[in-house]
């Protein structure tokens, strides 16, 4: 029953019990031994309060990213070039919303209600992936998102799928399966533009130039500046360091970009054959934090659209809630 954490008309079975409020050394040691042993932690198992808090934060923000991430791509459904591209884009956007729901369910098993998560998204308390605060200006942006943002997400999700929390791993397994279609259709659209007319190539190169910095931001700040991730690695909440994931992404995808005759807007980007690691110029991290904190080109639009949907959909949700309750006109 890994989705049944929050049930609004029943007492919540996964609420923290008194003895779970404080981490007892013996239980903590047993918990850490289980994780070191490769076991999965399941809902209802004892877990340190900090583990629960960090997991809720991680899974909830992942869920928000899926929901908000559907907006820049959804923009292009009505204008997708051709019937096949339109079908694929609709299917992809539907998948993303489905992923959001799978992830909200996984977070709910930890005791936070879906409504509370949505409220934290709307109030700005809970974040989502920074890349979605940028606009998809042309069809080439959709190809770049579908190919490279999804590729980056897969690197992250494949790593997290080996984490310690069972419901999150199971959700990610399903998500990664569907993401492989997203990546492939994105790559296909990307190649089509890259091998097309000069105007198409130019449009793709322009989109790539604009998206490269957000993509480099995607995995988060460099390891040297991020704090307290050691415990999260030990608890298998965080499965790979930001720099390692970034390096893995560059290793897999930069050659696929270069082989199509495209360039990337970083003159020092190259693989160091001696170390086997990629070298790149540090993206602007001040810009990253400025955008996360609301200063990006689309932050406001994304949240306003989400709020609009919540408000305008409310009467439908309420009407469905009590199907027998009919509205009656006053007699006099």
């Amino acid at each position, binding site marked *: *029953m*890994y*989705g*049944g954490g*929050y*049930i*609004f*008309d*029943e007492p919540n079975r996964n609420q923290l019990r008194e003895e779970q409020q404080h981490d007892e050394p013996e239980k903590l040691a047993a918990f850490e031994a289980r994780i070191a042993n490769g076991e999965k932690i*399941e809902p*209802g*198992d004892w877990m340190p309060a900090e583990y629960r808090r960090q997991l809720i934060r991680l899974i909830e923000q992942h869920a928000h990213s899926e929901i908000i991430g559907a*907006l820049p791509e*959804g*923009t292009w459904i*009505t204008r997708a070039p051709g019937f096949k591209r339109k079908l694929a884009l609709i299917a992809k956007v*539907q*998948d993303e919303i*489905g992923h959001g*729901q*799978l992830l909200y*369910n996984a977070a*709910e098993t930890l005791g936070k*209600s*879906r*409504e*509370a998560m*949505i*409220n934290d998204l*709307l*109030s700005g308390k809970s974040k989502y992936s920074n890349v979605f605060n940028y*606009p*998809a*200006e042309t069809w080439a942006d959709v190809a770049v998102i579908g190919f490279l943002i999804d590729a980056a997400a897969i690197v992250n999700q494949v790593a997290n799928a080996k984490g310690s929390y069972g419901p999150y791993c*199971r*959700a990610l397994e399903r998500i990664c399966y*569907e993401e492989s279609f997203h990546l492939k259709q994105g790559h296909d659209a990307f190649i089509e533009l890259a091998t097309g007319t000069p105007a198409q190539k130019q449009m793709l190169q322009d989109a790539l130039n604009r998206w490269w910095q957000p993509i480099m931001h995607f995995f988060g700040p460099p390891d040297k500046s991020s704090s307290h991730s050691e415990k999260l690695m030990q608890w298998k909440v965080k499965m790979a360091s930001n720099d390692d994931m970034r390096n893995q992404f560059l290793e897999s995808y930069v050659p696929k970009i270069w082989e199509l005759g495209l360039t990337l807007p970083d003159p020092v980007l190259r693989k160091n054959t001696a170390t086997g690691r990629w070298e790149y110029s540090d993206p602007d991290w001040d810009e990253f934090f400025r955008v996360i904190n609301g200063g990006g080109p689309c932050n*406001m*639009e994304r949240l*306003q*659209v989400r*709020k*609009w949907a*919540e*408000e305008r959909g*409310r009467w439908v*949700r*309420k009407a*469905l*809630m009590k*199907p027998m309750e009919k509205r009656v006109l006053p007699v006099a």
Partner: protein
Amino acid sequence: MSNDSLDPRVNRLKLGEAGEVVKVEEGENWNIYEVFHQEKRGAHHEHVGCVHAPDPQLALVFAKEQFARRKKCVNLWVVKSADILAFDVEDEDMFANNMEKTYRDASGFKVMEKINKFKQSK
């Protein structure tokens, strides 16, 4: 009114003011239903996840969208999560087996040995 978005659909909306507070009430996202997926007739229904829905009929509709988009599916069950009765996770030890359970297994009865011994003794 234009919202100055690249999305023509967004520009047609009457978006609220920036900083407007929108709050979803607890319970507004309905109840949770567990979903069980059947791959072919006669196979066991397998638990695959859950959906939020206002009633069982809509739970089935949402379950179809969420869990039967791609792979083969011939049937789905939905059950309100609250209606599932389960043992406490902490009572897991009650399933611990006595290792010596051969009296329950065919392998626990050495018939041929006895027959052979009987034949040899003749």
